[in-house]
């Protein structure tokens, strides 16, 4: 109850926007008996439309677990998760797959492109599962690849692309189904500093065009480029609204 009030007051303090993510008292427990591990303890978090938010924390802080729950890859042990105002916390595997398909876009550290498919075919993949008509798929895939600056690399296979280019293909794949939320899990972890900047610029552009982005990272330089930082420690939300400039003090402390 108290928690609901506090989130409500948070919402009032800024201008009104639709809430994309609302985590309410989420806990995640792994294992049974004596080997019980509390990965997330009673965490609550709200992300509104258009936010550009990074989740930080030491390893083991629960940031990956919370990412899995936000990404509908995992269900919380207790608590409620409203994604785009729908409670998805206890849905079945098939419904979750459907939600991942149409409401979420994923970008991973290891790109996870299919080696046998060209860039445009990789980007078309989510639309295959969404049942988009074949004629429409290519047009939308080309559009998405153009948005990430790869209009001239449509038919290259992943092994013919640089790491940065591969990650841009993965971003195009993540946005092609027009998700309400773009999730990135250490998106620059496998890139050098120059390509990291390329990829971060694309994220910034996408956010400016209205896409909500949540990113897990342990790199302060990356987090500093987002507009809000959520800090996890020991499975709890330690700070939910850090500003990028606060990060230096935090990293020291």
């Amino acid at each position, binding site marked *: 109850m108290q928690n609901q009030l506090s989130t409500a007051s948070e919402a009032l303090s800024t201008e009104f926007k639709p809430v994309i993510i609302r985590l309410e008292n989420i806990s995640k427990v792994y294992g049974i008996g004596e080997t019980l591990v509390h990965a997330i303890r009673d965490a609550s978090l709200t992300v509104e439309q258009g936010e550009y938010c990074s989740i930080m924390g030491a390893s083991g802080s629960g940031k990956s677990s919370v990412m*899995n729950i936000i990404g509908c*890859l995992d269900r919380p042990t207790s608590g409620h998760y409203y994604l785009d105002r729908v409670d998805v916390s206890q849905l079945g595997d*098939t419904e979750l*797959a459907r939600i*991942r*398909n149409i409401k979420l876009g994923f970008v991973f550290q290891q790109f*996870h492109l299919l080696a046998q498919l060209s860039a445009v075919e990789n980007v078309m*993949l989510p639309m*295959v*599962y969404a049942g988009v008509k074949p004629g429409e798929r290519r047009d939308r895939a080309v559009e998405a690849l153009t948005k990430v600056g790869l209009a001239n690399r449509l038919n290259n296979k992943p092994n013919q692309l640089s790491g940065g280019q591969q990650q841009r293909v993965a971003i195009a794949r993540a946005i092609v189904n027009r998700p309400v939320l773009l999730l990135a899990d250490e998106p620059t972890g496998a890139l050098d500093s120059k390509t990291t900047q390329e990829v971060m610029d694309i994220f910034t552009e996408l956010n400016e065009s209205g896409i909500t982005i949540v990113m897990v990272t342990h790199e302060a330089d990356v987090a500093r480029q987002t507009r809000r930082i959520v800090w996890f420690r020991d499975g709890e939300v330690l700070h939910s609204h850090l500003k990028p400039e606060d990060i230096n003090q935090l990293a020291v402390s």
Partner: protein
Amino acid sequence: MDILESIKMATTTLVANKLRSSLTMLGIIIGNASVIAMVGIGQGAQKLASEQFESLGPNVLFIIPGNQNAQRNRDVPKTLVLEDAEAIVRQVPSVGGVAPQIQTRQSVTYSNKNTNTQIMGVTPEFLPVRSFNVAKGRFFSNQDVKGNTQVAILGPDVVKKLFGNSNSIGERVRIKNISFLVIGVMESKGSFLGSNQDDTVYIPLTTAANRIIGRTSPYGLEVSFISVSAKDANSIGAAQFQISNLLRLRHKITTEDDFTVRTQKDVLTIVGTISGALTLMLAAIAGISLFVGGIGVMNIMLVSVTERTQEIGLRKAIGATQQDILIQFMIEAIILSAAGGILGTFIGVGGIMLVGAVTPLKAGISPVAIAIAVGVSGGIGLFFGVVPARRAAQLDPIVALRSA
């Protein structure tokens, strides 16, 4: 996601791994080809044997010395004699013709050429009963049989070997140093159960018994075999019954018969049973190789699931349901085995046609066998694809994505 998309997706993956896909298919190809070829060849052998027995003439019965149904394999007493055949002609009303025969192998000589061939002592009844015809000259008469005359009718292959293209009728050949006048040449009949009927010399039964083979039985003039034709198709059963009774009386039989009367149907049934069992055995052996091929498919699919764990995780993350993944892997397995099945069918059919071209075995290409073989190999894909596909479908996407 519809099934067409899944097929397209599976094909892309299989084409991307050409070597692996084709090696996996090879097991199914070999299995399927051998099933089809073995069944085809087995059926061909069955058909060939059946045709040969049918070519012996309609309504034919065979009287064979010895009890073919007896379990023990004893020395057969030489009790089937020419007099039995004569008694059948006189006393069995349902019989049309009776053709006793004795046979041996001897060397036949003409001038400086000789050939080892089958000598058959028969009566003129042999021609109508067994549906044989004389091509040139004439067959010998009952008079010749009575008079032990030294005349011979040659099979076409014997003529070819001894006379080449020159005329044989009117010439003399020697068998066991006895001179025979060639009076006719038989029409070509082809081979019967592996023995060449054209490589035969026909002489009067009495001449064969008295001059060539010698009388060896205390019961009379021993014969190797009696062919009997029933009056018509309806009297075959009656003829079998009456001949058995007559021979039992004549041989004073109280316990086991010392002869066997077989109808053409009996023989065909026996041939059918034997060659059917042979076909089944061949098919079973070939089936094992198909089964092993199926295990190969399962093996490769399991490897593929392990190898593509990350791909499966990614597909799940971007919205593939368990069912989508299950169907994708099932279809890959089915395509592998069905394509292997179809290729194997072509190879099997090719093998059958090759056998048909170089041997007298006209192996049948049965569409049913092909449908079954392709169906079975598709089914094998289904069966052996389930385990790997379920494993893939049930992968936890988080674990799958993290695996490196």
